[in-house]
């Protein structure tokens, strides 16, 4: 009985635990009515980093600011903006760090080149060994 009273009290006391005075933004937890737009928005949200979390995308976070960013993404996609434009807008304000997809800027060239280098290098070792085997 006491537990239920406690639970009811907690129910009435939401929002709890150090959050702001406003509820989540409109599009934070709502999908766009157009399925194609929602898919584009969802794909972009998976690649944007939550600014206040320990390494999560905004699609996987319950943080308020992540919800506000989802709201921003959905609103802009609904208004016709391209995902790349929204990503660029955010990178302009927070740097490359906010995008989980590394950019094509020079800083990321070694990253994209690495798999090729590894394959070529490894392939050369393997080819050398196989050739030696036959002879």
């Amino acid at each position, binding site marked *: 009985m006491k*537990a*239920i009273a*406690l*639970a*009811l009290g*907690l*129910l009435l006391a*939401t*929002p*709890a*635990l150090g959050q702001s005075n406003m*509820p*989540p933004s409109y599009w934070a*937890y*709502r*999908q766009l009515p157009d399925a*194609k737009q929602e*898919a584009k928005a*969802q794909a972009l949200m*998976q*690649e944007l*980093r939550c600014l206040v*979390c*320990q*390494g*999560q*995308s905004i*699609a*996987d976070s*319950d943080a308020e600011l992540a919800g506000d960013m989802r709201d921003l993404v959905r609103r802009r996609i609904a208004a016709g903006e391209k995902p790349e434009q929204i990503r660029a807008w955010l990178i302009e304000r927070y*740097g*490359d*760090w*906010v*995008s*989980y*997809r*590394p*950019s094509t800027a020079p*800083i*990321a060239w*070694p*990253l*994209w080149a*690495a*798999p090729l280098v*590894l*394959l070529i290098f*490894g*392939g050369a*070792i*393997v080819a050398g*060994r*196989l050739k030696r*085997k*036959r002879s």
Partner: protein
Amino acid sequence: MIAEAGLSALWLAAALSLLGLFLSVLHVRGKLDADREVRSLAIVQGVLCLFAFAMLLVVFARTDLSVELVAENSHSAKPLVYKIAGAWGNHEGSMLLWVTVLGLSGAALAAFSRQLPSRTLIAALGAQAALALGFHAFLLFASNPFARLDPPAPQGRGLNPLLQDPGLAFHPPTLYLGYVGLSVAFSLAVGAMLAGDVDRKLARAMRPWVLGAWIFLTLGITAGSYWAYYELGWGGWWFWDPVENASLMPWLAATALLHSVAVLAARDALKAWTMMLAVIAFSMSMVGTFLVRSGILTSVHAFAVDPTRGAFILVLLGLYVTAAFLLFAVRAATLREGAPFDPVSREAGIVVNNLLLTVILGIVFIGTLYPLMAEAVSGEKISVGAPYFNAVAGPLAIVLGILLAVGPLLSWRQERRPILRKLALPALFAATALVIAFLALPQATILSRFGLALAAGLIPAAVLPLIGRNPLRTPLAIWGMAIAHLGAGVAVAGMAADSAFTVEKLTASRPGETVAVGPWLVRFEAVAPVAGPNWTAVEAELRASRGGGVHVLRPQSRFFTSPPTETNEAAIKTLLNGQLYTVLGQSDAEGRYQLRLWWKPLVTLIWFGGVLVGLGGLLAFAGHARRSWRRRRA
């Protein structure tokens, strides 16, 4: 008393490992015959570590608040199973588990190894003792789990509610048995390189250790993935998070090592690859331990950050890995290659397998560390996440999957038969699936469409080695291989299906409303308060149906009191062809509750596949064990 007993056991174990190291050096250099002594020391040291760990469990089970670790991480109101599991839900306790597995592995190596020449075994035990010494030092000087608190705390600080879960009881111990079990492969490789004895006997001695550790790693990672899936509340099962990558890297190395050691055992070939992989696998375990506990990478899964502890592990890691790499560099020339093989042969197939796995390992390693490297060099902060890993490792994994279908059919040394004919049917399935996927699923990612095609081909191809054989006379190891490869195909099917077919619905609904998600109609019946032992919650009753019967789901939004946290407990209904995943969120001012609903067709295949892979490994283990037991009796 109990805590002090545990601590004394650890000190004693450390002293014994120092002695064991000393004696093994003398033995290997021929100054002394210390075979029995080194073996006994290894066994006693293992038992002492186990005793210390048992003492830690006792102290947690009783919630002894005079022990600082218990006061920081436990609470008298916690259920007993989580009190005990909480012993390894923190840095010091999990480090003690790490050291215990290290000690027990050394003990088992000493107790059960019969076929290795004495010099090789003692050299390996010496390497194991050297590892133990370093990590004991870390434990005793920088992470003492038995430190006392004076005066004792009035109440514990509780445990992170996200860790109050069966996952905590299962995932870390399994994972550690895997990570740290690879230390034996490392020690055997080091010992064999020191003694100059890299041959089939070594491979046969190493194989059960690699197989055993690999089975635990596979099951541990699978369990971790499922735990994150149902705990975090958004339906994701892999995030390329640095800590997850830290567990994947040893697994990739161990998988390559597993295949390589089989070649060494069967054909006396691939000596250099096998030694290098054995060193890399445990090195990856140590790197993982460092990454997770040093605070240099941001992650939801990371332990409490402490750079001084990180520095200690870095020094250990640096010493051990550098020494092993140097040893390899010096001895690699003496690793005389064994029987030759053709470019089209099973050995060659496994070499390509090694290559692909190592390249994927390199990609995961580079991707995980790149933000750190970029910042060190240029000061710029960048993020590397799923878009990179999926784009780069995904295609390689598909190629590897194709190899998985072909490889087991190849003969040793030289393949002369037209095996491609056997693959005609699986190839047909794959091609058909690919065409259908591209025509019928335009909104799915390219990777997932290829994944579906791969699975359609790999699942029948995996059982090909069994066809045409008498099931009762087929060696268990072949059954194991087929089931493990089948498991890989099943897991790929699950991953691709989850990516291509999942349907999501987010709504703000009032009790009484119905929501459609995929083929399901979910009626939001009611909301009620609920209480548990150390939490209270708001629970929703959902009734889902798709034509036939009704399934009731009760997702909760839970509030824990100590420490104060809010979590979502997803309600998941598992059916034969998928899972209905439901989460209850917050309510707004007008009495509407956030509901997050997913219909995920075939998603359980991901973890079912993982379990099959582990099961296959287990069968192979049993097969090899039975064969070596029979050989010994004969």
